[in-house]
Structure formats: structure tokens, C-alpha cells
């Protein structure tokens, strides 16, 4: 056991170094002036400046863009979880003629390049007047996140034995109630991953946000892209913005990751 622990730690060191270095670099870049970013030898320790953060927060309506991103991401997560769970449950429990084909069809959106989809989306949204609105983007993002959510949840729902549901229904639960109170908690890790995924899809997405949004619904990735000016990336501001953009993601994952572990204890249900 001891040896295992030691080896594990040993293996983790390069992994963590590799994962964290660029993030550390971004973090420090947000506190550095641009010139010191190129210093040789590279500066690991230095005296931080707050200019970059100040410029990002006050030169543009950053908080409005942040709340845009947040609301759209929450909408996406909610929408794809609800629609996805229902669809996945349906696929998992009923095998009907054509369900295989339908399942495959669901994946089709992920096969088309985003660029190709963007113009028809743009025209659709233009016709129904949803350009530069939250709803327009949420609709697009839910359609991006759903295929993966559906497939993932199908896998997790398949692992929930039918006896458990039947037992619940014998106890007087409605089918919907069984889904909510019995199946979902067992498949929680899958839902957590699907939620994280949907949130990230929405949060980090750039192309659709660029084309479909306008001043009112601009999201953070578009703002960050705008920091790559014609004179090159403003590393300081970009890093500051990226750091601030990371924080809600981290918060959400910390909250959700507990559910990813829950499966361990509930796995005892099988037997």
C-alpha cells in the first residue's frame, strides 16, 4: 500500500506540473506588465500590478458580459439536462423500431462544422427576431450540448436495474416520480458530468456568440477575443479576463463534483 501511495504521488507530480504550468502562467501574466512577460530569465516571482484587472473591469461593461455569460450558461445547463434526461430515459427504457437510427441521428449536429451551421442559425434567428437575445443563444447551445448528454445518460440509465424502478412503482410511485426520485440519484455522476459539460459548452463558446449576439447579449469569449487587437493579444488584460472567467466554472465544478463521487456509495444498490 505504502509503495502504491508513493508511486501515485510520484506519477502525479509531472501531471500536475504539466496541467498547472500554463494556468500559472496565465495567472501571473494577469499581474505582470507586458514587458516583464518576456523577461529572460522568466520571472517566477515578481511584484504584482493590478492595472490589467482594472482595465478589464472598468473599461468595458465587464459585469454585464459576465452576467450574460452566466445566465446563458445556466439556461443551457438547465435546458439540456431536462430535455436530455427525458430523452435519454426514453431511449434507455424503450427499444422500438428505429431507435438505434434515431439515436445516431441525434449525433448529427456534432458532425457538422459550427461554421457551416452558423449562417442558417443566423438567418433563423433573424426571422424570428431572436438575434442579440439570451434565448437565441441558449437554444443553439442546448442543441450543442444535448447529443453528448443524451448518449452519456443513456449509458448511466442503462446501468440502473429495472427492478429498482419496479419496486418503487409497486410502492406507489408514478413513472415520472420514479425517474426523479429513484433513477436520477443513482445516475447522479452521469448527470453531474452532463451538467458540467453543458455549462462549459455554453461558457466557452465563441463563434455562435460572435455572430448571433450583439451589444446586449455579448458573452465573455467574444470579449476575450476582442482583446486580440490588431496589435496582437493584450496578454495582461486577456489573462485577467480569463482568470475572472475561470472562477464561476471552478465554483460550479466544485459544487458538482461531489455528485460524481456519490456513485461509489450508491453502487451498493446493485446486488
Amino acid at each position: 500500500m505504502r509503495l502504491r501511495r508513493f508511486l501515485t504521488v510520484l506519477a502525479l507530480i509531472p501531471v500536475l506540473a504539466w496541467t498547472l504550468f500554463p494556468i500559472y502562467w496565465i495567472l501571473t501574466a494577469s499581474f505582470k506588465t507586458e514587458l516583464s512577460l518576456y523577461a529572460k530569465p522568466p520571472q517566477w516571482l515578481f511584484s504584482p500590478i493590478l492595472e490589467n484587472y482594472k482595465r478589464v473591469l472598468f473599461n468595458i461593461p465587464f459585469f454585464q458580459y459576465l452576467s450574460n455569460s452566466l445566465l446563458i450558461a445556466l439556461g443551457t445547463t438547465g435546458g439540456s439536462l431536462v430535455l436530455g434526461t427525458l430523452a435519454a430515459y426514453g431511449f434507455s427504457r424503450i427499444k422500438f423500431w428505429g431507435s438505434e437510427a434515431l439515436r445516431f441521428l441525434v449525433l448529427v449536429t456534432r458532425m457538422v462544422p459550427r461554421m457551416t451551421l452558423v449562417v442558417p442559425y443566423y438567418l433563423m434567428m433573424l426571422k424570428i427576431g431572436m438575434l442579440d437575445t439570451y434565448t437565441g443563444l441558449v437554444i443553439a447551445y442546448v442543441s450543442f450540448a444535448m447529443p453528448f448528454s443524451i448518449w452519456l445518460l443513456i449509458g448511466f440509465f442503462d446501468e440502473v436495474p429495472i427492478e429498482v424502478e419496479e419496486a418503487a412503482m409497486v410502492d406507489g410511485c408514478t413513472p415520472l416520480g420514479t425517474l426523479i426520485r429513484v433513477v436520477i440519484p443513482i445516475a447522479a455522476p452521469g448527470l453531474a458530468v452532463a451538467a458540467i459539460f453543458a455549462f462549459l459548452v455554453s461558457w466557452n463558446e465563441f463563434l455562435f456568440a460572435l455572430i448571433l449576439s450583439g451589444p446586449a447579449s455579448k458573452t465573455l469569449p467574444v470579449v476575450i477575443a476582442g482583446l486580440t487587437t490588431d496589435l496582437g493579444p493584450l496578454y495582461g488584460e486577456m489573462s485577467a479576463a480569463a482568470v475572472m472567467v475561470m472562477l464561476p466554472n471552478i465554483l460550479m465544478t466544485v459544487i458538482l463534483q461531489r455528485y460524481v463521487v456519490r456513485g461509489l456509495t450508491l453502487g451498493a444498490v446493485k446486488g
Partner: protein
Amino acid sequence: MRTAQTRRWYLIPGLVFLLSIDLVPLVYSLGVSLFNWWLVRPQEIRFLGIGNYLTLAADPAFRRSVVVTCAFTFGSVLVELLAGLALALLFAQPFRFLRPIRAILLLPLFVVPVVGATMWRLILHPDMGVLNYYLGLLGLGQPAWLGEPTLAMVAIILVDAWRTIPFMFLVIHAGLETLPSELYEAAKVDGASWFQSFRYITVPLLTYIMLLAVLIRGMDAFREFDIIFVLTGGGPGTATETIQLLNYRVFGLGHMGIANAVGIVTLALVAVMCFLLIRAVLKPR
């Protein structure tokens, strides 16, 4: 059974939503790809039938981009799957200290791809970057990471891997977590080694999850744009110009007909790839 009937209804909201949102643009794209439509000269739209597709098939730049895209997709998915699997197995051990570390490992997923790629570009910069500075100190020379065709491909796979390994790890890890521990205990009682239980319990049960991860990752890698665009812009020359980068160029100039044809071709290629993958893995089950 009545319950089965009710459950069928569950499919409806999700599928209706998805299919209406997705199929309409798809049909539109297909339609546009049959025309010669340039946004700058809207009065000169002509029906071409499969004309655009023939142009693409004859275009050496397009053919090359298909090769580049396949190389990138294969390379990155392979690296990411193996690394993700290895990490997930590492984290399957019941050590307390692993919990907080797991959250740290997910960080690259939270960095907006454009920023991550920009930072990596800075790190990989041959003259001004950190990596080469230390490589130089160690006497390992200063490779032109983004200036040479093979190295550039390695670099983009590297950065893509940095960004996506956490995702693979997360998915496989979640899958592992739901595996019932009794199976392993029973196997141990029966005297199975770690490797045997890995081979006969873990792998079969994980297959679905890994297939899904590879599928999703493959589809995304095939369509990857942001990272490659920021790091190399398709260069040097056209060494890292994937189908999407070519698409971007064509689109950006307003050539809707050809651009949509590229999109449809991408769809076809990815669909074939997925179909083969699913067949290969799920059939033997």
C-alpha cells in the same frame, strides 16, 4: 405495458427540439451547397448541382486538408484517450488526498480555448518563450515549435491534449465510479490479479463510456478550430491547415456555396467515422 407507453412520450420534447433546431439548418446548408453563391455578388447566384463538390474533390488544397485533419484527429484522440484512461485508473484508488487534486486537474477545461492557445503560443515561442529558454539551458536546443511542419503538428496535438485530457479523465472516471465494487471484491476472493480484473471486469464495462468519449472527442477534434487557428494559423505553409481552417478562409470571403459544400463533406466524413467506430465496438457485444 402502460409504463412503457408513457415513457415513449419522454422522448418527444427532447427529440422534437433537437431535430427541428438541427435538421432545418442542415437542409439549408445542403441546399446552399448546390449553388454558386457569393455574398459579394448576390445577383449572380447559379444552380450548380454537385459542381461545388467536384471543385473540392479536384482541389489539392482541400485534399491535403483532409489528410491533415485525419492526422490531427487520430493523434489527439489517441493521446487523450490513453492519458485520460491512465489518469482515471490512477484516481480509482481509494486515497483521500486524491479528491482535491481531481478538481485541480480539471482546470484546463475552464480556460477559454482562445486564451489557453494564446498562452501556449507564448510559451512555445522559439525566441521569446519560456519552454525554449529552459530547453536551451539544458542544452537541448531551441526547436522551432510552430515553425516546422512536424513540430507544428506535435504542438497543436499537445495543446489540444492539455485542454482535453481532463475531459476524457472526467468521463472515464465517472464511469469507473459507478462500477460496483462487489465485482472486484468477488474477483479478488477468486484470486484474480489487478491486471486480470482490469481486463475482464473494467474494460468490458467501460467500453461504452470509452467509446462515447472517443466518439465525442473524435467529432470535436475533427472540427477543432480555435486552438489550431491561434497557434499556427494553418502554417507553416499549409502543414496544419485542417478542413475547418480552410472552411474559415472560404467562409470569411463570403463564398457560401463552396463553404457549405465543405461543411456537408465534413458531415459525411465524420458520419462515416462514427458509424465505423460504433459498429466496431458495439457489435461484438
